[in-house]
């Protein structure tokens, strides 16, 4: 009985780990740009380049590399252009803060536009 439970536990452990690896693999591939394609991710592409990267990512996950380490490796080899999610760096500050800045400016603008002038309401 004990052996059966151990086998089942081992089976459960192996399948859950491979499922987690597959999820991580898909997540990473979706965040990588296919350098030889037009606006496609590595995940969506079947180009020679994408197939090699898919295989490399799979190997890296098997070797126990984390998501961050894999991105770092690929960005070292191909530059940040391969990452669809640009890293937070000095030259990408504007890219990260621009939407918030525009949002705040928009709120200020709306505030002034919707605010009725007091003098007119008195009249």
């Amino acid at each position, binding site marked *: 009985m004990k052996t059966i439970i151990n086998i089942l536990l081992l089976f459960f452990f192996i399948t859950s780990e491979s499922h987690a690896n597959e999820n991580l693999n898909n997540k990473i591939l979706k965040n990588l740009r296919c350098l030889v394609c037009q606006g496609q991710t590595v995940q969506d592409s079947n180009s020679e380049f994408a197939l*090699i990267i898919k295989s490399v990512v799979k190997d890296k996950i098997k070797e126990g590399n984390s998501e961050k380490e894999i991105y770092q490796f*690929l960005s070292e080899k191909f530059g940040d252009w391969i990452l669809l999610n640009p890293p937070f760096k000095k030259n990408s500050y504007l890219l990260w803060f621009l939407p918030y800045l525009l949002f705040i400016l928009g709120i200020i603008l709306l505030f002034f536009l919707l605010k009725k002038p007091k003098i007119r309401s008195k009249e």
Partner: protein
Amino acid sequence: MRKINYIIISILFSFLFIILYSSLDNERIYNTKDLIGKKISQVEINLFQSNETINTEEFINNEFTILNFWASWCAPCRKEHPNLVRLSKIKNIKLVGVNIKDNVESAKSFLKENGNPFDILAEDKNGKNSVNFGVYGIPETILIDSELKILKKYIGPLNIKDVNEIRKLVKK
């Protein structure tokens, strides 16, 4: 009050105009600018049709090393081959050819037909090792110095202009 609205709207528009105008010049295709000055990975490369390997660390012994990634099935590789032969005549450059995802016999006959300019001939049967050098298509050529730093990376076939540029770069 209207004045403030006008000011905010004009700030927003001028801001957007600057962003859009400056992005007109931005390149939307992959380039290798980021890789210049970086060290190449220390990896083992299999020698062509041999059980032996060569570690990239050994390139320290060369004044300059050129890594050329090629295959016999790649038409642009055939086009650039005479330029590799030209580069092979430069004494302070060691030329390393990495044959990628190729048929052994085709690769051999390619070199027999066009000449073998390589000091070291290596192979990457599944193309995975080439990722360590940031190769995403062939032909690609990387010029490195004795500190293993990338001086120049050429994507696509080398032309005579590139050969002259390399000549200048390796000139003492």
